[in-house]
Structures are given as C-alpha cells and as structure tokens.
C-alpha cells in the first residue's frame, strides 16, 4: 500500500516523520551548543529506548544519514546478510540493479555524489524489505535525475510485492512522473513571483580539462577513475541565470568545485569571468546546512566578518533585505500566505530557508565573478524554492554577480534561466558539455 503526503515546508515534513517513527534525532540547525545539549539528552535516554521494536526504514532527506558504513558494497552487504535478502543475491548484484556499477560500489561513500548516495540507499532499503513493515521515502526527486525515477518505482514495487507499506513524503511541487500524478497538487504551477530577472553575461573557458581519482590501496582497494571534460577547448559567453543539468554522478559537483577552486584539475585549466571580474566562484553547496559550520546564523556572521566590520554590516543588511523581500512577497500573495512559512512570520525559529539566505548573503558580499547554487531546491518546496531563487537572483544581479543553478528539476526553473549548460556521458571516462543560450545570442 502506498501513501503520498505533501508538505509545504521541510520543517513540517520532519515533524510528520518524527511523529510517525518516534525517532527525533537532535539537529544542528540551531548551532553546536544547543545541539550538544540535545545530543547529551538523547544519549542518556538511548538505553531506555533500545529495546523498542523497529520495523520501519526511512530514506532521509539527506542521503548521508541513510548510510552507516564507508563503502556502498559494505553498506548493502550487511543489509543483504542481515535481512537474508533473496537467496544467492550478492550485494554487488543488488547495487547493479539500482545502477551502481562495481567500480562505484567500491569507492568511498564520502566521494559519491548526492544522487549516487540516494541510489545506494534505495538498494539498501530493498535489501531490508524482509525485516521492515513499512518504509518512508522523503523528498527523493530533489537528488534524483528524472531518468532514474524508475529506480524509485522499483523500490516501491519491491515493498508492495511484499505487502509492506510505503509512504512517500513529498515537498509541495515535487512531481514523480509515472506514479499517481493525479495526486500532485497544482498550486505551485500557478505561482509566478513576478520578479523581473534581467540577463547578465558571463564567460566560461577551459582547455584540456581532466580530473583524476587515483587508485587507492587502503582501507579498501578503490579503482582508478577519471573525468575527461569535452570539448577540449571551450570559450563561451553565457547568460545568467544559468541552469546546469546532467545525470547523477556525471561530475557536476566536482566541476563546480573546480570553478570554486576547492578542487584543482589534474590537467588543463578552467576560468570564469564576469564584466571584468575574474577569479573563483562562490558556492552554496547541495547540503548547505553544513556550511554554517555548526554555528547559528548570528555566530556565523560574527566569526566570518570579525575582521571586516564594514562588509559584515553589508552582509547582514543584505540578508535582512532578502528576508524582508520574501516576507513582502508572502504578504502580497494568497497562495504563499497559505504556506504559513515560519521564515516569513516568526523571527525566533531558524528555518532552512533563512540559513540558505544567510549563506548566500555572505557569499555575495565577497563579490565573486559567479555565484553557484548547487541544488538550491534541496529541502524547499517548489513555491518556496521559486521565491528563494528569484530573490537571490534579483539581489545578485543588482550586485552584478551572475548565478549558476545546478538542478535535476529543469521544469522548476523553466521560466527563470537564460542559458543552459548540459552534461552528457561520452565514451569511456569523457563527459560532454554543451550550452544553449536559449536564443539570446541570435537576438
């Protein structure tokens, strides 16, 4: 039996999940101090709950929390053995069913992309079918490329065939094509924030770009892997807002880490430029919560701008301006008002939307040649995401900073982006990068 639940905000989704599972782990959103207090409380009450029966499995919104061991092959290996999943089925076979190749299965979990982590989580959940009575799958489409949605269906089918309950927890606007599409609320499709977004040109150039992941011998033998970006030379003018799409694990996140300077290419060079501003892009990561470094928003601003008071003041003003803009738009729109966004009504509770805005404000204050939003839709419903992205682009463009959005959900940004970068798999280790200026160049 499959149920679908829709939520307007991530916070509501988590509330529902903790009510249903009675599992309410301490979270880091309120900073290390509060977290450590709550963690201590959890730790001392842990033994009391140890004997409780657990018959549910959950695919959490952050795939990192679905996995307990350092390698996919171990992760699924334990599950297969423990749950005595289909006699004779090896963990590698099961992973292959969920499109995780042998070489990927032997790579460290820490080096996998978000989408790959989710697919490993699916394989693991499939192995646990025998010893669980129900599964909760939270917001899976935000990590998964649409071409991989059939694997979500495969997981649901495995549970349904075994007469187990499946609950899909979607954030409003998430579409899962091919499954009960008539149940999807149409509210977000009607929403248009009416923020005029102009186009800012920026330039990307690279030649002979390659990244190599050497073979590792310890703790587990990890195979050699490389990504060879094609064409060999590219020098393109594209227009912000720009959308970057591509399959799970194709190398998008590593590419933007090279744009940011966090990862150095093993070969070749990559540069970005906007209106004479050249240098490293700033990046809002996919799991952006971690970028607060375990601090509260205020503490984060205080530490980062401790030795640049002027910019610190500007960043705080920018953060407040973006938040005010959101509140203003919520108050003007009946659809948004119905969402009852905590971020728009209550300044005392920290929400994921506020955290993302604070991190964006800090990044914009460094006036980078490009701001990258890696899966900004993570943990945001479609309408809230549209609001967030529109407000960020509006403020970034005022500061002459172009914005690059990485997402699998092309539909969510169809009315926003001016140019599109697309990554497709080539032969062997190569990845083809193509761009489309959506008619801007010919115009």
């Amino acid at each position, binding site marked *: 039996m499959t149920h679908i639940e829709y939520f307007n905000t991530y916070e509501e989704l988590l509330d529902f999940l903790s009510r249903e599972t009675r599992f309410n782990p301490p979270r*880091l959103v309120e900073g*290390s101090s509060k977290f450590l207090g709550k963690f201590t409380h959890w730790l001392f009450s842990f033994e009391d709950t140890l004997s409780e029966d657990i018959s549910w499995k959950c695919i959490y919104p952050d795939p*990192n929390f679905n996995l307990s061991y350092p390698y996919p092959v171990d992760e699924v290996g*334990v599950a297969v053995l423990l*749950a005595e999943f289909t006699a004779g089925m090896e963990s590698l076979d099961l992973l292959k069913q969920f499109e995780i190749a042998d070489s990927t299965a032997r790579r460290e979990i820490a080096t996998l992309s978000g989408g790959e982590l989710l697919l490993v989580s699916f394989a693991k959940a499939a192995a646990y079918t025998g010893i669980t009575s129900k599964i909760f799958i939270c917001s899976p489409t935000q990590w998964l490329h649409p071409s991989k949605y059939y694997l979500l269906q495969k997981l649901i089918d495995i549970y349904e065939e075994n007469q187990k309950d499946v609950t899909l927890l979607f954030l409003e606007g998430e579409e899962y094509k091919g499954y009960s599409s008539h149940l999807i609320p149409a509210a977000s499709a009607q929403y248009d924030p009416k923020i005029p977004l102009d186009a800012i040109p920026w330039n990307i150039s690279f030649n002979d770009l390659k990244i190599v992941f050497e073979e590792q011998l*310890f703790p587990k033998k990890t195979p050699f892997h490389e990504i060879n970006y094609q064409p060999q030379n590219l020098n393109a003018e594209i227009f912000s807002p720009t959308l970057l799409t591509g399959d799970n694990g194709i190398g998008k996140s590593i590419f933007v880490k090279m744009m940011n*300077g*966090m990862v150095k290419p093993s070969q070749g060079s990559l540069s970005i430029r906007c209106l004479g501003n050249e240098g490293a892009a700033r990046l809002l990561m996919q799991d952006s919560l971690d970028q607060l470094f375990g*601090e509260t928003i205020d503490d984060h601003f205080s530490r980062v701008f401790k*030795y640049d008071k002027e910019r610190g003041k500007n960043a705080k003003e920018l953060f407040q301006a973006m938040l005010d803009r959101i509140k203003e738009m919520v108050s003007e729109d009946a659809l948004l008002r119905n969402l009852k966004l905590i971020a728009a009504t209550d300044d005392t509770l920290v929400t994921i939307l506020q955290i993302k805005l604070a991190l964006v404000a800090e990044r914009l204050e460094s006036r980078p040649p490009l701001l990258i939003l890696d899966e900004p839709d993570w943990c945001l419903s479609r309408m809230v995401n549209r609001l967030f992205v529109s407000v960020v682009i509006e403020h970034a463009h005022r500061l002459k900073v172009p914005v690059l959005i990485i997402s699998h959900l092309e539909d969510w940004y169809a009315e926003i982006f001016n140019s599109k970068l697309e990554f497709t798999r080539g032969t062997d280790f190569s990845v083809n990068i193509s761009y489309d200026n959506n008619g801007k160049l010919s115009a």
Partner: protein
Amino acid sequence: MANYQLKLSEVKPTWFKLLILIFIGLPPFTGWPLSRFMSGNYAVHNISVWTAYGVFIWLFTGLNVGGKQLLKYLSVAFTASLLILMLTGVFSHIPFLNPEKPADESLALSYTSAMTFVIMIAVIPYGLFAINCFSASAYVQTLQFQSGKRFKFKVHLALALRVCQHVGDVLMKLFDIWREENPRLIRPRFATDLNESKLSFIGYILWFKNAVVTWCFALLSHTFEAIPYFSEEMRIVINHKHQKIK
C-alpha cells in the same frame, strides 16, 4: 611502495591482527622496549631513539596503506601536533598557570615539547591506520552468526568503531567547507581590518584561536550528528537478532 604492499588489515583471525597492532604500538603506552635504549642524561639521544621508532612505524604504515594515504595521515599528524605544541607553548607563558620558573625548568619544558611532538607525529598516522584496519561492517556481519552472549556489548563496540572511522569522513567534508569559506586556509577571507591594524599579528593569533575552537566544536557536533542514525541501524540488528532467538 605500492609494489611491496603489506596487508595487515586482511590478517585473520581478528584477535591476531589486534595483537600485532598492539605489539607494534606498545612503546607510546609503556615505553618498552625503547626505554632500554634511553639515557637519562642525553636529551638528543632520547629524541633520536623515538625518531628511529617513528621512521619504523611510518615505514610499516606506508607499506600497508600506500604512499599517498600515508601522506594524508602525516598531514593530519603534523597539523594536530603543531597545534598542540603551539597551544602548550602559549599556556606555558600564562603567568598564573606557570609561576616563575628557573631556566633549567624552561629547558626541560622545551625537551618535553620536542619529545611530545616526535611521539605524536609517529603515533597519529599509526593510530589512524590501526582504526581503519578493522571493518565495522565485517564485524557486524560476523555478529549475525554468533551466540546471544554479550551481543549488545558487541553491537555497541561496532558502533564505537564506526564512529571513530566516521571522524575521518567528517574531517574531509569540513575541510572542503572551510576551503570554500577561506581559500587561503590559515587566513580569513574577509580580513580588511586585520590587514590595516597595527596589531594585526595579535588579531591574527585571536582569529587562529577562534578558528581552532570553531573547528573542534564543528568536528564534534558533525560527528555526533550521525550517531543517532547509526544507532538506529544497530537497533535493527539487535531487534532482528532478538526475533530470531525467540
């Protein structure tokens, strides 16, 4: 180094592997057998003995993990050792913690610091190697076929092992985040006031101290954040085992 790889992590049974690791790692805990070569009067001689042990232990670790992994372990060891040495140095100059000391005591302090540094850079890579020699997943898999005796304790042990290994993953992730925020790593991205100040060195020391504290809290809380999820996983193991026994 890769051509001559030792595979201690694959040694079976596990208790024998543990015995080898303990035997090689004995000197930092007991002093033996290095104490036999030490001399009470010659500081340089004693440090040399520890350095020789350090070289041996690096070589042993390197032959097991490969050159690149050894370099990663060494970078962690040098960073941690230098930080501790610097903090010890700062604390030793705080008057109320250290009332006036005679010159020979200061000399003794320098000797102790140098010795601590050498021991730390020798032992940390070995410690990291030793922790990663054991696989939490393989251990949990063996629990499946064991009797119920002290089962819960063994599951807790597996959880503890996994949490220790998880520190490495968190460290990598936080390092990426830190580098995005501060591309020069040991200088803040936003440092206009610091550069213009006449007391910039003091400001920098304060920034550095803050960074260390922030890192410690972040490392602790990000590592702990995953523990409830790990423990839920372990609870499934326990429950399933109990049901099978019933």
